[in-house]
């Protein structure tokens, strides 16, 4: 970007992308803000005008609001913990030289290519179905009563499905990080008298610090908006109603666009609070 001409050419080239992105983000955002201040019931009279902060007050005071926030945070945190811990272990396992490494790596990454809806359906019908599911057969094989996963253990089931979806992502990022570790550092640690476990704790884990923060950051952004897995499996019942699912219900099931939009604004605020925290941690971690 040295000359004036190349600078303006660069701006011109970037303009379409920037305009598209701005449009894509700003139009829905402004519409959400607009609707959140109006009484808008599509099947019961349509747009009925200005209501001020009524929608905001109603959304927060509703008995489903705080449980939904709690559910969202529980899902995000549990999935993060599971994917990071298992991801580190899997990454170390995959880093070992072994027969059929290429195939195994592709298999491990495969779940990430399955659409959330599809994977949730597969889990629901093939594994967790209390009559025909594989788990039910397994339980019966050992003489136990099959568990109706999606009603009796709805949250653990959803967390399991979402974790299964995101584990490959974490594994992949952490695997590349592990591969960038200088082998001589581990050998030096071995010479220094550090057993395997301490090598992991003092050398490998600090080396992965940066990759782990990136995994947490990216996953959090997507996990806050988890929807398909809940829609397909429990439909928000049995304590699995997250904030985004609650908004969906307000808009489509209650046909109250104003109320749903107010919820959407809350979701934006929540996501930003989380993002600010994360950015601080990541910023610290990426600095050194």
């Amino acid at each position: 970007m040295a000359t004036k001409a190349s600078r303006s050419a660069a701006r011109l080239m970037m303009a379409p992308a920037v305009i598209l992105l701005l449009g894509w983000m700003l139009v829905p955002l402004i519409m959400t803000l607009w609707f959140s201040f109006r009484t808008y019931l599509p099947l019961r009279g349509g747009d009925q005008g200005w209501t001020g902060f009524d929608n905001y007050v109603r959304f927060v005071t509703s008995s489903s609001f705080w449980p939904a926030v709690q559910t969202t945070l529980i899902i995000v945190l549990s999935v993060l913990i599971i994917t990071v811990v298992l991801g580190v272990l899997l990454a170390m396992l995959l880093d070992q030289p072994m027969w059929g490494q290429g195939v195994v790596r592709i298999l491990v990454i495969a779940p990430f290519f399955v659409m959330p809806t599809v994977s949730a359906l597969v889990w629901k019908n093939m594994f967790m179905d209390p009559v025909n599911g594989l788990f039910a057969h397994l339980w019966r094989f050992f003489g136990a009563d099959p568990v109706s996963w999606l009603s009796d253990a709805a949250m653990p089931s959803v967390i399991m499905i979402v974790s299964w979806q995101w584990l490959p992502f974490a594994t992949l990022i952490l695997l590349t990080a592990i591969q960038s570790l200088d082998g001589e550092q581990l050998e030096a640690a071995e010479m220094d008298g550090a057993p395997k476990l301490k090598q992991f704790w003092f050398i490998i884990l600090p080396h992965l610090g940066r990759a782990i923060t990136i995994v947490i950051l990216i996953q959090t952004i997507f996990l806050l908006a988890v929807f398909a897995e809940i829609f397909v499996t429990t439909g928000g019942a049995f304590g699995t109603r997250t904030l985004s699912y609650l908004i969906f219900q307000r808009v489509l099931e209650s046909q109250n666009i104003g109320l749903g939009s107010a919820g959407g604004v809350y979701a934006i605020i929540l996501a930003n609070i989380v993002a600010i925290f994360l950015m601080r941690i990541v910023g610290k971690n990426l600095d050194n």
Partner: protein
Amino acid sequence: MGQIQLKQVTKSFGDVQVIPPLDLTIQDGEFTVFVGPSGCGKSTLLRLIAGLEDITSGTIDIDGVDATDLVPAKRKLAMVFQSYALYPHMSVRKNIAFPLKMAKMDQAEIERRVNGAAEVLNLADYIDRRPGQLSGGQRQRVAIGRAIVREPSAFLFDEPLSNLDAALRVGMRLEISELHERLKTTMIYVTHDQVEAMTMADKIVVLRAGHIEQVGSPLELYHKPRNLFVAGFIGSPKMNLIDGQEAAKHDAHTIGVRPEHIDVVESDGLWQGTVGVAEHLGSDTFLHIHNTGFGEMMTVRAAGEVNLRHGDKIHLNPRVEEIHRFDSKGLRIA
């Protein structure tokens, strides 16, 4: 403390034997240098001694105790790696303290030893920095510091200077030699640079394809190379090797004359040729001589400045008593 003895040690990777049976004794307190072209197995040999690779057969004794199956940490050896292998997320102090912390030494003793090492190596100014903030030479010092705090019975150096620039390399070379003088600990040093080997070693081990070609003091190797390989490898510039008729005159298959053992004379020299490139170093001039009639180009070292140009005719006299003679198998004829 610090005698290392290798008995019939071999190492194979799969079907490839990189170290054929090898015997070697390194005496306590000796500065031993393994030198050879890249891929000669010198680093592998060092890693076998360190315990980072398992030996395929044979035994390694350290201080008279069989250490063949001991894990690296139990061998009481400390290693300085080519990449330094410092822990990037720890400060210099923590890096140096790491082996002591692993040995569960008490905090006061760790403190004392780290400060001692910092003093010896002049690390005090940057002891709380991270390795990423240090220059190559400083990192090298930290790596050595991490090795000396353990007070090992021997130090292993794996091409420690190859990542430094030329000026720094000369400086660190001196520092390591000084360190050896002070600590009197056994040191094994791997390098492909024969200058490092000649300047630092008490004993040089010349390796080729896993074989030991010759073991001896630097000057032994210089004056009495056992075969053509050692003759060509030790000394800079390389020894001139001549075979054919000229060699037959000396009852040898090949004769070798070092560039510094050939005198430039005005006329009536034993050998003649034309000057090619002349490298003026100030203290010496290296002349590359063509058309000597021996096939290969010859290098001659003339002291001081020599006023010769490309294409000049030149007369040369080798010092007969300094001619090395080799038989058809490349072995030295005494």
